[in-house]
């Protein structure tokens, strides 16, 4: 597998993009097929593993981008690190966790899980761009369903919601509902 020219082209595109872009756009801009784009990205990922490289492929949802290597972050953070907004309160974080793990989820469903009306917390999370409305539930009143945003993934350094921290098996067993 060579793909020399193709790698150069995709690298240049990713350099110019800054934010992760999906395969379709990469194919459109480069004029390569999506299949080739996919292979090129894998090849680049491999190349970037070299210790002499300071950037790496980052993935966010279905997008692919470039970014400085994780291993270098510590050295870079003084100059390029941006502190996240103030940390979330326990109540906000609890609401966010419920939405993250159970999305799509409606307000009454969140309330039912928390045992507390979550309106203020939902408003807060919406305003911080961490959650968004992602649809309406096919139920009486067609309540709004919430889910997490890209910004949420970015702020929590996650590639996708599949990356959310998991309970280990023992704990999973403990929380089985029909225990």
């Amino acid at each position: 597998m060579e793909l020399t020219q193709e790698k150069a082209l995709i690298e240049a595109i990713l350099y110019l993009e800054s934010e992760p872009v999906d395969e379709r756009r990469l194919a459109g801009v480069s004029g390569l097929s999506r299949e080739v784009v996919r292979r090129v990205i894998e090849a680049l990922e491999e190349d970037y593993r070299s210790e002499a490289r300071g950037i790496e492929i980052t993935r966010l949802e279905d997008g692919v981008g470039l970014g400085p290597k994780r291993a270098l972050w510590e050295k870079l953070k003084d100059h390029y690190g941006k502190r996240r907004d103030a940390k979330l309160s326990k109540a906000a974080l609890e609401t966010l966790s419920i939405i993250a793990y159970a999305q799509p989820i409606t307000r009454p469903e969140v309330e039912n899980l928390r045992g507390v009306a979550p309106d203020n917390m939902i408003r807060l999370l919406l305003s911080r761009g961490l959650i968004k409305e992602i649809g309406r539930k096919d139920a009486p009143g067609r309540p709004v369903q919430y889910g997490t945003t890209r910004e949420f993934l970015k702020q929590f350094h996650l590639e996708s919601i599949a990356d959310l921290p998991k309970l280990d098996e023992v704990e999973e067993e403990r929380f089985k509902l029909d225990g």
Partner: protein
Amino acid sequence: MPEQQQEQAQHFRVNEFEGPLDLLLFLIKRSEVDIHDIPIAEITRQYLEYLEWAASIDLDNITDFYLMASTLLYIKSRVLLPGEDAAEDEEDPRQELIQKLIEYQRYKKLTSLMDEQQQESEWVIERKKKQPVLPFEDDDDLWVRIDVWDLLKSFSSIMEGLSDERVFDLYEEVSVNEKLSLIDEFLETKGEFLFTDLIQRRESVMDVVCAFLAILEAVKSRRIRLYQNRMFGDIRIGSWN
């Protein structure tokens, strides 16, 4: 023992509990009982006790806490006073609450994982400029596409924006300047030239005057030398050096 417990409970700040489920979980844990077999009477008693004490404090979700209290009392009554047709397979009245508690416990655990994640991602590394574009040289074709008329239009619209007074001064200056520039150009392209070369419109007095002023200026600044071989003859102009 209850006294001691109460004292203990009071050490927990009220907002320590995110809601009634949180409080219940705390009480269950403290009593070291199996969540699947909650001694409902005892837990209800502790719950109400806590609530009584907490009522004097402004508890955010106080109504939610009372709602749970009524649920607990209802379950307690069901447990203590089994219905006349209580069958073996009838559902445990505690079941729904237990399920809720277990599920809530699960999310609490997940929240603590998220909290760790949050600590780890206290900051993000950001690129300085979000959208780099290709450097300016790529705009070559933009320059090629403008012509002298664009220049004229641009210049005349600048002129229009100026007051007559400023334009007046400028126009006068432009003419002399124009001749000065022409002198430079001829020096570069021809080396030597005639005064009459500088005059574009012979019928224009201004043109002649400006050309004349320009050569005087150029001589003064030692850019040119003038040669004239006879009176009223054409003036030859050459570089000072």
